[in-house]
C-alpha cells in the first residue's frame, strides 16, 4: 500500500532540481562557446579539402560518435587525473588533482563531444548553400573571405538552425550524465534530495519537468531566432 505522492516534497524537490539549472546551462554554454567556432572551422577546412584536417576530422567524428557519452565521461574522468598527476609531480607543481572540480571534466567532455556533432551540422549546412552564391559574390568583386562572411555563412547559419537547436537540446539533456562524476546539476541534486526518504518517484517527476521546461524554452528561443533570420524566405502576404 502506497501513500500516493508526497506533494510538499514534490514541490520542494522541484526547487532543488531547478537550482541545478545554472550548472547545466553553464556546461552547455561553455561547451557551445568552444564547439561553435571549432566545429565551424573544422567543417570549413574539411569541405575545402585542407590536407590532413579532413582525415583528422573523419577520425575524430567516428571516435566521438562511436562511443556512448557516459563511457567518454568515465574515460576522461579516470584517465585525465592520472595524466595530470604524473605531469604535476614531474614538474613539481603542488596541486592535488583530486581537488579539481568535476565541472572542468564536464567542460572538456561536452566541448569535445559537441564539436564533433557541430562539425557535421556545419558541414551539411555549408554544402547546402549553392555554389552559385559564391560565384555571384566573386562576380561582384568580393574576395573569398568576404564571400563567405557576407553571403555563404549567413545563409548556412539559417540552414543549420534546426540542427543547432537539436544539438543544443541534446547537450542540455546529456549534462544529466554529469551526475556520474558528482557534478551537482539537476539530476544529481534531485536524487540526493530523494535519498533521504526514498522519494524517488517525486524526484524523477521533478527532474522530468525541469528538463522539459528547459528544453521547451530553448526550442522556443531558437524558433523565434530562426523566424527572424529567415524572413527573406517568406512570400509576401496576400494583403
Amino acid at each position, binding site marked *: 500500500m502506497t501513500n500516493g505522492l508526497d506533494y510538499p516534497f514534490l514541490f520542494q524537490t522541484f526547487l532543488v532540481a531547478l537550482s541545478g539549472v545554472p550548472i547545466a546551462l553553464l556546461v552547455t554554454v561553455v561547451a557551445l562557446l568552444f564547439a561553435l567556432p571549432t566545429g565551424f572551422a573544422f567543417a570549413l577546412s574539411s569541405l575545402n579539402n585542407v590536407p590532413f584536417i579532413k582525415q583528422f576530422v573523419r577520425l575524430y567524428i567516428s571516435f566521438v560518435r562511436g562511443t556512448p557519452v557516459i563511457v567518454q565521461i568515465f574515460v576522461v574522468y579516470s584517465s585525465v587525473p592520472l595524466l595530470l598527476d604524473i605531469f604535476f609531480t614531474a614538474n613539481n607543481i603542488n596541486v592535488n588533482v583530486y581537488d579539481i572540480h568535476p565541472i572542468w571534466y564536464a567542460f572538456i567532455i561536452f566541448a569535445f563531444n559537441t564539436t564533433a556533432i557541430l562539425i557535421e551540422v556545419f558541414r551539411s549546412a555549408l554544402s547546402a548553400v549553392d555554389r*552559385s552564391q559564391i*560565384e*555571384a*559574390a566573386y562576380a561582384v*568583386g568580393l574576395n573569398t573571405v568576404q564571400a563567405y562572411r*557576407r553571403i555563404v555563412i549567413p545563409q548556412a547559419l539559417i540552414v543549420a538552425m534546426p540542427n543547432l537547436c537539436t544539438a543544443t537540446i541534446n547537450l542540455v539533456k546529456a549534462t544529466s550524465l554529469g551526475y556520474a562524476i558528482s557534478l551537482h546539476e539537476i539530476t544529481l541534486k534531485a536524487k540526493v534530495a530523494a535519498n533521504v526518504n526514498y522519494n524517488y518517484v517525486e524526484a524523477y517527476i521533478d527532474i522530468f519537468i525541469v528538463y522539459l521546461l528547459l528544453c521547451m524554452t530553448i526550442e522556443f528561443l531558437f524558433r523565434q531566432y530562426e523566424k527572424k533570420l529567415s524572413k*527573406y524566405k*517568406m512570400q509576401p502576404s496576400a494583403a
Partner: protein
Amino acid sequence: MLQLKDIHKQFGDNHVLKGVDISVEKGDVVVILGPSGSGKTTLLRSINFLERADAGEIIFQDKTIDTKTATKKEIHALRQKIAFVFQNYNLFQHKTALENVTEGLIIARKMKKDEAEKIGVQALEKVGLQDKLDAYPVQLSGGQQQRVGIARAIALNPDVILFDEPTSALDPELVGEVLEVMKEIAHDGITMVVVTHEMDFARQVADKVIFMADGVVVEEGTPKEIFVHPKEERTRQFLKRVLPEDYTVYI
C-alpha cells in the same frame, strides 16, 4: 579592349575549349551563338575566372594575364572591371533587391552606404524595378530577378558585362522584358559579351556574332554576314535548325 588568345579548357577527358581566340572592341555587343555543348558558357565563365582555363591568355586593357598562372590579385583586379549576369540570376537569396545591387559597391569597392544606395536605386530604376527595392528574390518573378541581376552588374559601372544565357531559364512571356533592358544597355554603349539563343537579339543588337561549335570558333562576322551569308556549312546547319522555316532576315 578584351582579347582571348588560344583558350583551352578540359573537364576530365572532355576537351571543352580547343584553342579559342576572340576579340572584343570597346562599346561592342558581341553575341556568341552555338549548339549546346559547344563551350560558349565555359568560354564566358573563363573570362572572369569563374572557370580557370587550362591554357591561354586574356588581354584586358593592355594587360596580359596568363590563365594558367593568374594570381588571386590579378583575378580580383579583373573582376572589379568585368561584371557577370548569370543564367539562373544567382541573386543573393538573403538580401533585398537593393542590397543585392549595393553589396559589391559597399563591400568590394568600399563605397559609403548612402552613396551606394543612390547608385543602386538608379540601377534598379534603369531596369524598371524602382518599386521593388525592398523585395527579396523569392518575392520576384524570374524576369524581375534577372533584371535585378542586370542592375547588379551595371551598378558596378564595369567596362564589360558578360551575359550567360540570361533568358534561357525564363518563362517565354518573361523573356521580352529582360531583352528590352539588355537592348537599352547596349544603346548606352556598354561593352557586352552575350551568350544566348535569342536570334532576334543577336540580329538586331549585335555588332559582331561569333558562332562556336565543338570548342572552337567556326565563324565570326557581322549579323548580316552570319545570318544572311554564312560561309561555313556548320553555321548553315545550325541556323537552319534554330530558325523557323519561313524566317526572313531583315538587316
